[in-house]
Structure formats: structure tokens, C-alpha cells
């Protein structure tokens, strides 16, 4: 991130953190308001817009029949891409995805893939093809914690998606076989204090960040530390527990109906 935040703002946030406060008045383990709106894009097979505070991402899911990988002929394929378009932040530049966009896409991708969110074995087609699932994350407004917003948007858009089976002559359209509900929760470290759902300011000045992706029953499905700060094993365990329980709460709030099934 190239954002330059005045030294004074940084000192202010650190001083607040020492007093267990955050600039926007939240508790350390509190998220900004989350909004999820599914189905905005008719041209996509599934879509969802997620806002976390002023951060905003739009995720579209496209499905098309295609060739499976040679070493997994009976398995659908997930392709995840994140576009940090310059519309979303003064620090984003046009051009191919940079390392931040690539890391973001790959963490979201692994969260979906490795958690087993989609039963890919059910995505074969009668002619030997499989469904290719394109998850495209279009970031619209970057005010911090894009990763949790993107992961949430990916899950909501997948839940919203229907296979375009009729268009390709494969029988009736169907929902995707969703088996797991991975939720990403990110914390930053500010002088030893861990804060969930960092705002842009917090994220910019924090020396390290850790994202924890967990599923139903609190199983850990993914993790990514980034930044040049260091963490002790004890700190990591504490954050992971906090993130996993926060994820359960978010899952209940937004996907309670689904996960009861």
C-alpha cells in the first residue's frame, strides 16, 4: 500500500490502542457493519456485493463447461481472480495484478478450495467436461480489510450461483453443491494489540496482519500472515481462537439458514 498517513495520525492510533480504543470507537474484536447483497449482476451466474464499513467489493461467479485438469478428470475447476481497479483507491494503479492482488486472490481461492466449500466431484458433465467456476472479485472501494470482504463475497456469490445448464443443453439449472462455509477473519497487530477487521488506517500502520479462515464447527481451513512484523506462537494461538469464534458469529448472522440444512 502506498498510502501515506501522517505521522500524527499514526501516533494517535497507537496512543488509542494503548488505551484499548480504536479511532472509530469499535472494540478490538468488533467488525464494522457488514452488508451482503446477492444477485445484483444478472449476466453472472452468481454475484454478491459486500460492504464492510466503507470497503466495498463486488464478486461475480461465472460458470462455463471446460476441460478438467489432466490429473483430476472428475473434478470441477475453480479460478479466482482479484482486480484492484484504480477506481477503488488512490494507491491502486492500472495494470496486471501486483503481488497484493495476487496474494488476496490466492488466499480467497485457497479458502474456498481447501475448505472443501464446493463439492467439486459433483461438477462433472456428461460429455467429459466439467464446470469451470470463475470467481472474479472486483474491488470498488478500499477502506481496509479487503480480504474478509472478498472471502465473504466469494461465498455469498457461490451460494447465489446457478449452473447455466440449460444454456449449454445439460438439463435444468441447479445451485452449486456447497458443503462448507469458510469465513475469513483478519486481525492486525498494533504494538502487541490485536484488532479484528482493520480499517485502512489501522491496516496501513500495522506491522503484520493475519487472516484466519475457518469453517463450520470452527475447523481451521486457511491462514495467511503477511507484513514484516513478527508474532509469537502464543499470540498466534490467541488470534486464531478469536478469529474462529468471530467467524462462527458472522456465519450465523448471514448464512444461518443455509448452515442449518
Amino acid at each position: 500500500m502506498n498510502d501515506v498517513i501522517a505521522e500524527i495520525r499514526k501516533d494517535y492510533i497507537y496512543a488509542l490502542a494503548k488505551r484499548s480504543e480504536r479511532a472509530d470507537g469499535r472494540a478490538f474484536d468488533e467488525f464494522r457493519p457488514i452488508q451482503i447483497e446477492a444477485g445484483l449482476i444478472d449476466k453472472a451466474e452468481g454475484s454478491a456485493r459486500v460492504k464492510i464499513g466503507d470497503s466495498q467489493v463486488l464478486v461475480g461467479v461465472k460458470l462455463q463447461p471446460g476441460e478438467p485438469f489432466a490429473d483430476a478428470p472428475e473434478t470441477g475447476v475453480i479460478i479466482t481472480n482479484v482486480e484492484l481497479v484504480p477506481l477503488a483507491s488512490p494507491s491502486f494503479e492500472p495494470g496486471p495484478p501486483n503481488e497484493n492482488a495476487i496474494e488476496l486472490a490466492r488466499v480467497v481461492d485457497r479458502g474456498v478450495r481447501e475448505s472443501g466449500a464446493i463439492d467439486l466431484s459433483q461438477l462433472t458433465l456428461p460429455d467429459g467436461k466439467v464446470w469451470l467456476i470463475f470467481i472474479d472479485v472486483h474491488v470498488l472501494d478500499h477502506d481496509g480489510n479487503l480480504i474478509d470482504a472478498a472471502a465473504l463475497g466469494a461465498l455469498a456469490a457461490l451460494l447465489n450461483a446457478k449452473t447455466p445448464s440449460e444454456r449449454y443443453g445439460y438439463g435444468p439449472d441447479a445451485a452449486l453443491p456447497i458443503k462448507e462455509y469458510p469465513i475469513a477473519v483478519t486481525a492486525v497487530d498494533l504494538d502487541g494489540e490485536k484488532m479484528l477487521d482493520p480499517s485502512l488506517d489501522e491496516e496501513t500502520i500495522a506491522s503484520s496482519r493475519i487472516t484466519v479462515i475457518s469453517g463450520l464447527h470452527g475447523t481451521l481451513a486457511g491462514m495467511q500472515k503477511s507484513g514484516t512484523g513478527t508474532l509469537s506462537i502464543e499470540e498466534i494461538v490467541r488470534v486464531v481462537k478469536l478469529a474462529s469464534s468471530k467467524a462462527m458469529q458472522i456465519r450465523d448472522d448471514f448464512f444461518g439458514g443455509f448452515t442449518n440444512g
Partner: protein
Amino acid sequence: MEFIKNGKRIDDRLPNELRPVKFDVGVLKRADGSCYVEHGGNKVIAAVYGPRAVHPRHLQEANRAIIRYRYNMASFSVEERKRPGPDRRSIEISKVSREAIDPMIIKEFYPRSTIDIFVEILQADAGTRSAGINAASVALADAGVPMRGLISSCAVGKVDDTVVLDLVKEEDNYGQADMPIAMDVRTGEVTLLQMDGHLTLEEFEQALELGKTGCASIAEMQREALIQKYRGEENE
């Protein structure tokens, strides 16, 4: 394909009728100005950043701001997933859109700086460049960039030998002509004009006039949206 039946088009509009259009001003926090537009099936968002410093520096102009314009389609905005990043079509559209907006901006106020306009097509249904220009024009005003006027844009076309306003996808794909136009409706200055298909000279003149009325309606909505925004701000 029959495009006009009992005087009505495939989506039930009259030949000279625009699709429903909605402007939403100031929808993004980080951008200096922004505008979301729904125009029929099109969903478009524009953001403006600037005036701000130019990088790389050799692009700077000593006595005026430069204008940059990037038209970009989201991968999921069209039926077949589009590969991300600029293609030849979007590079051409970015160029003509920039040239459509540029003459309205008072660039002399901001030497050595840039005003960056970013247009994202979230859903496409014919007429995206016009919707993008309309959104960009409002986003510039929202950003407080000093302008000589607003630019308003729409497409005119020909289907079933009839000149019609504001084509939808099917009319665009299978019709006889498509002609996007952009203008400052107060002065009548045309800043964008493209055409392809088949038009006689008479049809062309008719199309220009129809385009003018379309732009005028758009301009009305743009002004209304900006007024709403500032009214809203005053009431806050």
C-alpha cells in the same frame, strides 16, 4: 428478427424513448467524486481522482492538467466471461470517451497535475460507453472539478429501417446501424460521434436530432442527481 411491432420495440419502448435511467452521486468513499448509473441493463460506476500529481513525471504538462480516462469491463459484466485487463475495444473507447469529456474540463487551473477518470462496467447491455461518459461527467462535478458544462451521451440506431433511440443489446447486435453521440446540450457542441452500419443522409440527420433529444433528457437527469446530492448534503 422483427424489431418493431405495433410501433413498439422489443422491450416495449417507443422508437424515441430512453430506457429507465438512474443516477446515484457520491457512492464511493475513497474517490474524490463518484457516480453510479443504471441505464436499462447497464450498471456502471465512475470515479474521479484529482487533480493530483502525475506519475511518471514526463507526462506532466507545464500549463494545464492532463486528463486520463480508463474504461474497463468487469469479467462478469458480459455473457461470456471477459478476460480481465484492457483489450483493443476498451482502449479505443477510453480514447474517444476521454476526448468527449476533455473539452469541458478547465485544465488550465491545474498545471502539472492529472485528473483521472475510471469507469467500471459492472453489467453491460449496449450503450456502455455512453453510460460511462454520463457517469464520469457527474463524478467530475461531484469531485468539484471546474467544468464548462456537463457532457451527456446516448446512442441512436436503426432497426427495421426506423431510427430509434438508445439501443438494447439485441438491437445493437442485429440492427442496421449504431451511432453513439455525446454533447454539451446547452451549447449544442458535439464531443463524441461514432457510427457504423448503414444510414442514408436523411436518416443520419434524423438520428442526430433524435440523439440531441436523448442527450437533453440525460442532461436533465444528471443535473437533477447533482441537485439531489447537494440538497442532501445541506440537510445533513
